[in-house]
């Protein structure tokens, strides 16, 4: 029995469908390489969706090209696997046409930052109420292992046997620069954290951007193990929580404070608590978020994960709807006969 029949027979109100993870799994075989980090991201999304209470016919997953972009095929929702880099633009058209839909963009480091870099920037500044998951594995997987725009300098790959020359982009930093209203980072292997971030992204009104560090176990295995594996994770990541001090370490004995314009790691014994940075994700001013975003791939600093920034700003589709309504109020509903006969007319 499918869901709609069930609803009819049981008279369940349409507004509150009860769903579980299985309801969001499509009938297609998942075809990522065994052990790929994408499996976990798919799973965490399917696990958290029932909690969000969105009827599945209202969900649209839109992707570009790349390993991550196969994602929509595995979701039993509406889905659109589009062309390389263009998912943000297609998502804009979907959301502008029907603001009721819950629109999710699934992209990767190459899709969003190389070929789709332009659309990525404009999606963020436009601030439609959509959610964006960028799977960052710092490699081109689908095309068999070339360096990506987030690969470290000197990366030896099939297309860079002598090491790559391009300096990497930092997705969180770019998102903040583009004026994104919600910017977060999570890890494929931190399932609970990832679920909580996906949930927070959904709850944020505006474009929510999540960078997910994702392991490509074929072409870039272990790229993020320092941040994801038990032995090293606690000492190399700092979890951002609003209103909390930046404290980290297996013994939670280290913190981050500002020394002039530089962040520095201090042992909590050495300093009074008040010196530590207190995270404020709702700050209007993005300076703190920028500053935290710069603590990426700096050996002496832990990697921040969590929500860097979450601020309210009018959504594109709401302003668009508002313009339509105002135009209808001031000019009346469009009358085609009148429109065609407007301007200077004459009768023969």
């Amino acid at each position: 029995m499918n869901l709609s029949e069930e609803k009819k027979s049981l008279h369940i109100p349409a507004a509150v469908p009860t769903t579980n993870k299985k309801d969001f799994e499509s009938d297609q075989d998942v075809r990522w390489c065994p052990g790929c980090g994408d499996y976990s991201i798919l799973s965490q999304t399917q696990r958290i969706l029932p909690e969000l209470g969105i009827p599945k016919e209202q969900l649209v997953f839109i992707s570009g090209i790349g390993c991550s972009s196969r994602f929509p095929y595995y979701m039993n929702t509406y889905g659109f696997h589009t062309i390389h880099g263009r998912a943000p633009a297609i998502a804009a058209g979907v959301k502008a046409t029907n603001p009721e839909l819950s629109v999710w963009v699934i992209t990767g480091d190459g899709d969003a930052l190389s070929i789709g870099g332009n659309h990525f920037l404009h999606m963020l500044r436009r601030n439609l109420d959509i959610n964006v998951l960028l799977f960052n594995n710092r490699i081109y997987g689908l095309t068999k292992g070339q360096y990506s725009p987030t690969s470290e300098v000197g990366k030896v790959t099939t297309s860079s046997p002598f090491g790559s020359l391009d300096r990497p982009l930092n997705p969180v930093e770019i998102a903040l620069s583009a004026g994104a209203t919600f910017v977060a980072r999570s890890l494929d292997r931190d399932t609970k954290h990832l679920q909580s971030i996906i949930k927070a992204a959904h709850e944020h009104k505006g474009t929510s951007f999540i960078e997910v560090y994702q392991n490509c176990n074929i072409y870039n295995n272990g790229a993020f193990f320092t941040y994801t594996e038990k032995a090293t994770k606690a000492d190399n990541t700092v979890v951002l929580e609003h209103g909390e001090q930046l404290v980290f370490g297996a013994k939670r004995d280290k913190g981050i404070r500002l020394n002039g314009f530089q962040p520095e790691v201090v042992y909590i014994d050495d300093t009074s608590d008040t010196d530590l940075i207190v995270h404020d994700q709702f700050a209007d001013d993005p300076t703190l978020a920028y500053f935290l975003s710069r603590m990426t791939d700096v050996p002496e600093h832990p990697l921040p994960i969590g929500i860097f920034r979450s601020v309210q700003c009018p959504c594109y589709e709401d302003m668009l709807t508002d313009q339509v309504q105002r135009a209808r109020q001031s000019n009346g509903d469009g009358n085609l006969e009148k429109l065609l006969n407007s301007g200077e007319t004459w009768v023969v």
Partner: protein
Amino acid sequence: MNVCVKRKISVSIKVFGAFYEEGKELMKKQRQTIGDATILFAGDSGDGAQTVGAQLTHTSAIAGNDVSTLPDYPAEIRAPAGSLAGVSGFQLHFSSKEIHTPGDLSDVLVAFNPAALKISLSRLKPNGILILNLDNFGQRNLKLAGYNEDPLEGEIRNKYQVFPVELTRLTRDALVETNLSNKEKELCKNFFALGLVFWLYNRPMDYTLKWIESKFASKPKFIEANILALKGGYAYAEATEQIAVSYEVESAKFSRGTYRNVTGNLGTALGLIAAAQQADLQLVYGSYPITPASDILHELARYKNFGVKTLQMEDEIAAVCAAIGAAFSGALAATGTSGPGFALKGEAIGLAVMTELPLVVLNIQRAGPSTGMPTKTEQTDLLQALYGRNGESPIPVLAASRPSDCFDTVYEAAKIALKYMTPVVFLSDGYVANGAEPWLIPAVSDLPTISADFATDPDRFLPYQRDPETGRRPWAVPGTVGLEHRIGGLEKSDLTGDISYDPENHEKMSYLRAQKVANIANEIPRTDVFGSDSGDLLVIGWGGTYGALRTAVSNQRNAGASVSHLHLRFLNPLPNDLSSIIQNFERVMIAELNLGQLNKIVRSEYLVDTIAYNKIQGQPFQVTEVETKIEEVLTVEN
């Protein structure tokens, strides 16, 4: 108009009495009735040639003439004053008979400066009237225009009726009682020139007077000034002994109905709105500004009260992608561009082919390749429209033939997109887009039925199950309960739409997509041949060459030639009856503003030895050159 302004104008007309010699009877001037006239205004971008050209157009249309216009803009927004690059022209043809072109050569050239004279003189008929702003013919402007000697001293006076007018000084004199600065006064000289032409062709001033009042409502001093200039020019023409004859162009016979002037771009915008309204859909238009398509975006952006959503995206690719997203979500989706933008959109249009979503893609062609000549017209994107995508990617292609045809053609494009679930290319060009002519406004109740057929029934729903008649797949939009499905650019399995690499399936799907587009030929009405159904020569054209070809063929037929004209709206699929029509003619000539693109198609499609007639100068065909070509072909034939 307030009383004060009225009084001042009457005073000023008295000032212009100075042009009449004291006590002398007004010279009795001749008035001749003629069939048609072509006027060309040319000057610096800032001279207002376009403004007064539009005024004469509306006035003539309202007076009952058939009109056809061609603005000719420079590429530079504001090139240096007086330079050749900055010359902007506006050509207008008005007639007591049905006309199809803005005229080859003009009867009157109003040249606001030497650069305009240099650029436009070749477009004036022998012995035509040349009105010059003498005040602009100083050494500096002559030099800017590249004249080493004063052109007015040369042969020019033997070849044309030259009327040098001190346009700037006379305008200043006409406005002597206003409190405008000299610079502001000079701005009104285009209306002085217009007044002169109004007298020359016995045009009523009412429309322009009203227009000035509403246009300058927020700057009342310019209402008074422009009206004074207009009436001053009229009075001057009447008084001066330079001009001895005025002309009368009688009303043309039109079908009954209500008319308005329409440019191609305006007609296109209205056609899209009409299609969305009739289909009861939102219109979502994704675009990125590009000449000469931007006016469609500007026009559509005004109609939010029709639920029209215009999305000015970050680039051409984003523009078409936003439209594809809108199509997926159940809107009548369209994107508009010109050749370079169309090239950028190619991959995304392929996505719309693969996902079989309804989408209207407007390509307002311009001279290429690359940036080419953005403000000049050409028909060089036909092959790009037909084939400019990877893979076997069939798309219906329609072309509008004239400004008044854009509404119907784009409406039909939208209808086909929705009925067959396919992207459709609508071709126009700079000449059609910016040209204007009277348009018989259709009654909404007479518009063809157009409908969006959304899938709603989850019972045995298959995203790629086809309608047996049209070959369309269902349109199941997000938000519909029970129809959740995935689409994308990967090859689809027949019926289910699941990803498929199966060799037989790919071949089958390629044929199904091709067949669906081929089925559209059933929509095409019987092809109309102008002239006889058989004969020595058939001239085939498409798009914006309609007017020149129709007029040339008509003239040649009147002269006894056995020639007919067939103009295609559908370039893909081609009409079913085209093959048999072609068989009935000894020879077939395909005339187009490219190096023979339709010619290639017709040759390969029908194995017929056609004659290619091509022009690629960024300019439309002239009637006379087409006639010469027809004569030449028929002579060789005989």
